[in-house]
């Protein structure tokens, strides 16, 4: 989740562009964060100190941690702790951007400091509320009626996508009061005290990508099985949303069986939203219309 939020922050603030973010997200599975990026993230070292040690490594055949300890920048204990954090997703995105040369250690440090400051909890705010507020900002729905519902629903969807498909995606766009199109899509309605229609789909590649990752299989066609896989992910998302509403909101919701559509053109009304996410395998769209 942090990867998407921090990635969006850097994109939104012009630190990187969409192509750079996409390249870094695609590379994330292949790399792990270096000790320098982890030390900056933990606040143990400045970017200048990290750059200094990288320079020294050109002339001294020693590991980063050993030099940092000898210079008094890190303790042995801190090195051990940082080594355990090298695979943290939040660090890996920064490392990928540094490795590609899209940002420097200093730019990473500045962006991280600013992001953490802006993402810190405000008086009495829970972590969940903060995430929802951040989602409202990302989606640009702060003036929208039912913004809380949309933020909560999309936040849960993002978490499920990370859990079941992976975290190599970024926010590519938010559409409201317009017409959107999807080559392939699955639809489901939520009914009860709250009524909504939800659609998950995208380009052909995006649609197949969702199905292949969710099923853990090598799928190449948009056949009935592929459609069923996407439909099941949508059903799982809505089922978990219904459970959350049942547990926390005393709201009993029902779901319709999923249906699938091709070449879908969909009007997004005032009380609806469509979010495009760019995965390394293709673009996908989530549309939610509250009725």
């Amino acid at each position, binding site marked *: 989740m942090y990867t998407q939020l921090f990635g969006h922050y850097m994109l939104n603030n012009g630190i990187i562009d969409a192509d750079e973010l996409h390249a870094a997200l695609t590379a994330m599975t292949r790399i792990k964060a270096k000790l320098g990026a982890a030390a900056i993230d933990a606040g143990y070292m400045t970017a200048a100190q990290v750059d200094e040690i990288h320079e020294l490594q050109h002339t001294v055949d020693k590991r980063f941690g050993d030099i940092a300890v000898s210079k008094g920048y890190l303790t042995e204990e801190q090195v051990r702790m940082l080594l355990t954090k090298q695979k943290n997703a939040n660090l890996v995105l920064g490392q990928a951007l540094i490795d590609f040369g899209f940002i420097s250690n200093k730019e990473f440090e500045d962006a991280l400091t600013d992001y953490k400051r802006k993402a810190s909890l405000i008086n009495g705010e829970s972590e969940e509320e903060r995430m929802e507020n951040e989602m409202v900002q990302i989606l640009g729905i702060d003036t929208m009626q039912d913004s809380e519902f949309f933020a909560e629903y999309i936040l849960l969807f993002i978490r499920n996508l990370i859990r079941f498909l992976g975290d190599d995606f970024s926010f590519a766009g938010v559409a409201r009061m317009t017409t959107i199109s999807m080559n392939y899509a699955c639809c489901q309605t939520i009914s009860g005290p709250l009524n909504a229609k939800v659609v998950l789909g995208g380009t052909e590649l995006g649609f197949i990508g969702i199905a292949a990752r969710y*099923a853990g299989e090598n799928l190449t066609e948009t056949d009935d099985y592929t459609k*069923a*896989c996407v439909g*099941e992910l949508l*059903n*799982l998302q809505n*089922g978990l949303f219904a*459970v959350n509403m049942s547990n926390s909101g005393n709201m*009993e919701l029902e779901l*319709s069986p999923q249906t699938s559509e091709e070449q879908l053109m969909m009007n997004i009304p005032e009380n609806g939203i469509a979010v495009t996410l760019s995965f390394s395998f293709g673009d996908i769209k989530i549309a939610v219309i509250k009725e």
Partner: protein
Amino acid sequence: MKISDITVMICDDSPLVRKKIAEILSKVGINTVINAADGEEAVNMYKEKKPDLVFMDIVMPKKTGIDALREIRAADSEAKIVMASTVGTQSNLIAAIKEGAFEFLQKPVKEEDVLKVINRMLKE
């Protein structure tokens, strides 16, 4: 009853879910599996094949899993039906208990959950 003698019916409109549950069952040695793709087919298939255990989704076309559970239990009060659904809401849990479900599993179904159900069934 030996585990390899158990016949299981998986009722879910998703072929992915049917396949995943069948794979878990195969791992524990259950290879006699009947598939049904909606609630109506499940009721008809149950009456015809009398499986020892049923995994039943709730949100399905033609007939919901809760309705199918009710009809099967009305025909066979000993039927062991495990509700396996993403929609574990209070109302569905209550309905499943009221209609005599053997167990309620939250999807995606995990191997350890299936094993617990099989073990409980064998003990009873």
